[in-house]
């Protein structure tokens, strides 16, 4: 029975739909729940009424909190979490390495520098976001320029170029913090670098939505090619695919997502590393299912963590700190329990 099921032509569709649908339902629940909870509680039915624009008769305060305070923040966490998670999953396949995260190709360091520089120069939010995005892409172009050769670029070369580019921009970030005014600018820059969606607004959502969704769409369209790419260049070429071209397409999509995410939320680490592993343990390594599930799971994960960040203490715990504090031990436990199951002794 397992046998016929496994080879039936409709199989991929049948297997893909339940996990994706289940995760979408979970995400919808998380969104509604996250909008409802906080210092100023709004009852769940009211939240649903407001979100479906049937909020007449409810207090203006309720509507304000839901539509203009919490919803943009939740939407921003949705975009950033989902984008970083799917980017991480795609990179882990492209580099055939479970420890790869979006930070590895240097784009987040580039984007951090852009943002820090804008804060140092006292420029406004629009410039900050633009500079972060712009320098993120500059980092990708640098990686391109360093590795460009005739024929196929070895994966190791790309990783090295990414690490070098990342270190270079990290040094520039350090320089920026060093010269920043310690009473005024420095705290702002450090807090921004920690990663947060606390300053969310519809403006930021609008800025992030373009690059994050465009990059995500490209990755989703490539989802089956990602399987082939993950076999390694030699085998992919033997099957008749051009691995170099596919990989650069993938890297560009990832850079768009990361630059967009860092621009609006700073450096939120660990999401791109941890969430793909959780998703893979649930649905297996086939990227046709894995990539969409990873996006939805990353969104739900970051919304949950951000809700914790703003509700557990009176002050705000920076999001990037929480993702690392919770992500690292959870990752450790799951890896111990599942080692050798998903990866071939890699």
């Amino acid at each position, binding site marked *: 029975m*397992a*046998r016929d*099921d*496994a*080879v*039936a*032509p*409709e*199989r*991929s569709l049948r297997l893909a739909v339940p996990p994706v649908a289940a995760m979408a339902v979970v995400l919808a629940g998380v969104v509604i729940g996250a909008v409802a909870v906080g210092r100023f509680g709004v009852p769940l039915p009211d939240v649903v009424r407001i979100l479906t624009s049937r909020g007449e008769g409810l207090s203006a305060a309720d509507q304000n909190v839901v539509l203009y305070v919490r919803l943009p923040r939740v939407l921003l966490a949705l975009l950033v979490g989902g984008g970083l998670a799917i980017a991480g999953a795609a990179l882990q*396949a492209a580099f*055939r*390495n479970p420890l790869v995260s979006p930070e590895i190709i240097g784009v987040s360091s580039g984007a951090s520098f852009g943002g820090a520089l804008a804060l140092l120069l006292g420029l406004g939010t629009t410039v900050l976001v633009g500079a972060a995005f712009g320098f993120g892409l500059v980092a990708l172009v640098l990686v391109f320029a360093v590795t460009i050769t005739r024929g196929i670029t070895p994966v190791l070369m790309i990783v090295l170029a990414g690490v070098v580019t990342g270190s270079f921009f990290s040094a520039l970030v350090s320089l920026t913090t060093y010269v920043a005014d310690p009473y005024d600018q420095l705290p702002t820059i450090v807090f921004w670098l920690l990663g947060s969606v606390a300053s969310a607004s519809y403006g930021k959502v609008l800025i992030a939505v373009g690059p994050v969704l465009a990059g995500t769409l490209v990755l989703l*369209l*490539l*989802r*089956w*090619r990602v*399987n*082939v790419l*993950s*076999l*390694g260049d*030699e*085998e*992919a*070429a*033997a*099957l*008749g*695919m051009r691995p170099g071209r*596919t990989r650069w397409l993938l890297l560009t999509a990832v850079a768009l997502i990361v630059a967009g995410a860092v621009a609006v939320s700073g450096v939120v680490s660990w999401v791109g590393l941890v969430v793909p592993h959780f998703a893979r343990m649930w649905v*297996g*390594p*086939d990227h*046709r299912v894995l990539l969409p599930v990873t996006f939805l799971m990353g969104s739900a994960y970051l919304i949950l963590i951000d809700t914790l960040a703003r509700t557990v203490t009176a002050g705000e715990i920076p999001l990037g700190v929480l993702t690392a504090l919770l992500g690292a031990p959870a990752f450790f436990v799951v890896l111990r329990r599942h080692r050798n*199951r*998903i*990866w*071939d*002794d*890699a």
Partner: protein
Amino acid sequence: MLELAGVGYRYTRWLFRDVTFSVPAGTVTAVLGPNGSGKTTLLRCAAGLLSPQAGAVRRSTPAAFVPQAHQSTFAYRVVDMVLMGRVRNVPTFATPGRRDHAAARDAMERVGILDLAGTPFSSLSGGQQQLVRIARAVASGTRILVLDEPATGLDLRNQGRLLTLLRELADAQMAVLLTTHQPDHARYLADTVVLLLGPDDVRVGPATRLLQDDTLNELYGIDIGAWPGSAHRTAERPLS
């Protein structure tokens, strides 16, 4: 089907030069030579993965190349591995459709691994993994199959199964080109052999004529009569 005319490849010095042979549909050609003689390079030229610096390669369809075994990173199921053979037939921004799944199923059936379809590739034995790689090549729909040392690392039973399978694929009008270190395999399987004795000494001919003791002595620089492994061949046995 597959024709090489005056093919030569050099890194710094010529690895081989002026190699001319053809693999018609329904036949098997085996390439033999010592380590480092350029067997894999010749195969990659034939499959279109390398461009030779001299000569020309003609293929009636794109070739399916089965590289030497190496580890895969993710534990894909067998059916998903075989499906990846369809990559030439699926547009860049698409996923495999009904016809691709049907082709993968047919290929698994032909190779005799349909019962493994749902098993993770990484949990298979080396012999089974090699069968999956061949099914993946068959699934691509090509008529030209190029295999780099397909029997390496397999036990006698699996070697027999592999040789039988390759013979069947050739009998079904595929053109099969492979490298091997085992003259026995070439004897059993190949219609034509290509011997890489040196850069300017490449011999092509029927297996029965070329695979004699004196040629093998010359090819590997040994005395095959005194070679320790030759004892088992005193009583000729079929391989499968």
